[in-house]
């Protein structure tokens, strides 16, 4: 098997952090805030590494777009078992306005350049909550998409994907090359062990610029402002179930 998988990994504010909106309403505070790999991207990396362990693919390439710090995220993927990394360097204003459209153009260009047969991404990033990049990458490549995957099985030149949909699950079969996006229940990502973290330091991360890939980063979407959501009024504690039912009846909820 000579198949190659491209895995997209995004560096985001850690999922457990309570975010703060900047006083000038231009965004959220990111300086000095704990960042880590987007949880859905971890699942994508785990799935790619598992496919390699089953000897169904030959090489796993982890890709991240952003400033210098995203190399840490790529290192994490390498420590989990990815073979090499590609850092697509995007900084300054370009990084501020970097969205799924631009990222999908980068991934599509890299997938072709690297001759990948599969692109695995998380279903959404927990910062922008867009849930777009995988679908858009598939569109730009004219490849089929298996989104919100909870089960992935390679079957010759096809991929069987069980998808999480609103009413339950659905199974589709898509041609390779393909794009798959990982849902939470696809797998449980492994922890990188210390020896593997040490080994990951020796693995190569190539540096690429979007212009090398012929990708224009112009964005036609502007963030006008970012606000705190309305705060809920403090509630009351009730002592008994009867009190609770009484209160709900009073307020007309039951």
């Amino acid at each position, binding site marked *: 098997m000579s198949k190659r998988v491209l895995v997209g990994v995004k560096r985001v504010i850690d999922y457990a952090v309570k975010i703060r909106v900047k006083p000038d309403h231009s965004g959220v505070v990111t300086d000095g805030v704990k960042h880590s790999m987007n949880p859905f991207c971890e699942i994508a990396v785990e799935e790619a590494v598992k496919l390699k362990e089953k000897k169904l693919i030959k090489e796993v390439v982890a890709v991240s777009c952003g400033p210098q710090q995203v190399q840490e995220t790529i290192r994490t993927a390498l420590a989990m078992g990815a073979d090499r990394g590609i850092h697509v360097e995007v900084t300054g204003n370009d990084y501020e306005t970097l969205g*799924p*459209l631009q990222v999908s153009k980068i991934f599509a260009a890299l997938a072709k350049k690297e001759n990948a047969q599969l692109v695995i991404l998380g279903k959404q990033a927990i910062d922008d*909550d867009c849930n777009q990049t995988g679908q858009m990458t598939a569109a730009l490549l004219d490849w089929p998409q298996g989104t919100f995957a909870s089960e992935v099985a390679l079957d010759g030149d096809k991929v069987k994907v069980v998808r999480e949909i609103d009413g339950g*699950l659905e199974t589709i079969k898509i041609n390779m090359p393909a794009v798959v996006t990982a849902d939470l229940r696809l797998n449980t990502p492994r922890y990188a062990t210390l020896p593997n973290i040490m080994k990951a330091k020796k693995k190569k991360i190539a540096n690429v610029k979007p212009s090398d890939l012929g990708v224009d980063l112009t964005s036609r979407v*502007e963030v006008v402002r970012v606000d705190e959501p309305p705060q809920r009024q403090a509630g009351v*504690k009730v002592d008994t179930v009867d009190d609770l039912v009484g209160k709900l009846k009073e307020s007309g909820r039951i």
Partner: protein
Amino acid sequence: MHRAINKTHLRQLTGLLQRFQSTLVVVEHNNDKLTPITLSAITAANKLGGEVSCLVAGTNCAKVVEDIAKVQGVKKVLVAQHDAYKGFLPEELTPLILATQLQFSFTHICAGASAFGKNLLPRVAAKLDVAPISDIIEIKTPDTFVRTIYAGNALCTIKCNEKVKVFTVRGTSFEPAATEGGSASTEEVSASSSAGLSEWIEQSLTKSDRPELASAKVVVSGGRGLKSGDNFKLLYDLADQMNAAVGASRAAVDAGFVPNDMQVGQTGKIVAPELYIAVGISGAIQHLAGMKDSKTIVAINKDPEAPIFQVADYGLVADLFKAVPEMTAALQK
């Protein structure tokens, strides 16, 4: 004086632009019934001020077309019936939408932010080379939208300068359009030939007599505190007394108590019922993202420090195994 003239002029111009606006709503259905979120998408589309068309694609469209033609605010229903649309695969629907766009030049294309809409619209947007906007909760102007980011912990106002605005609509943020009183014309659009990249195999849907989670008026949700799948029966009994849907936290889904389509949260369903009862749920950021716009929130938890109490209108610090059956009994009276 000059300013006054300019203002009037501007207003006329805006009016003119709005008249030229036209929106396509991609209808979600199962070849038999319209999915309720489409009605919310139609309401959002009507807020834009232009003409609203709906596209119904599927293997069997007649009944859905009949229903959608009666929905208030719909001007035209475009119909594409073909076997290629089996399973509503995005590889097949995208060329159809692009062909429709070429023919009618819509300024806006939208759908509900369900698994269907989220799967399809970004693919359409990429093909149009535009950045889509996900899960909007408000329309300020035809090019300015509000959506949540960071699991609902910030509201982001976005101005979209794309030639076509492609967006998905949060169902709970827009009232469903009335299903009577409309009289739309119907028009067939030519189905494209099959792309043949993907194949729909099967579906396994969770069957239930309870109302659908995303649109239920009352939701009872359970978390890790339920301890087992069997114990969820306590919640089903309570839900039955209130004609409520039953939801769950990620912990309950991961522990295998209930199937994942019951998950409420950032990565599950977003609900905003009149009454949300969280039982044995701590209230992690990711769960709150899916329910904190509920009108009234009730928390039943034995841990008085649980974060859920910070958003609950009524909190009961108690053992759920005692409190829930008591509540069920109290409602039976």
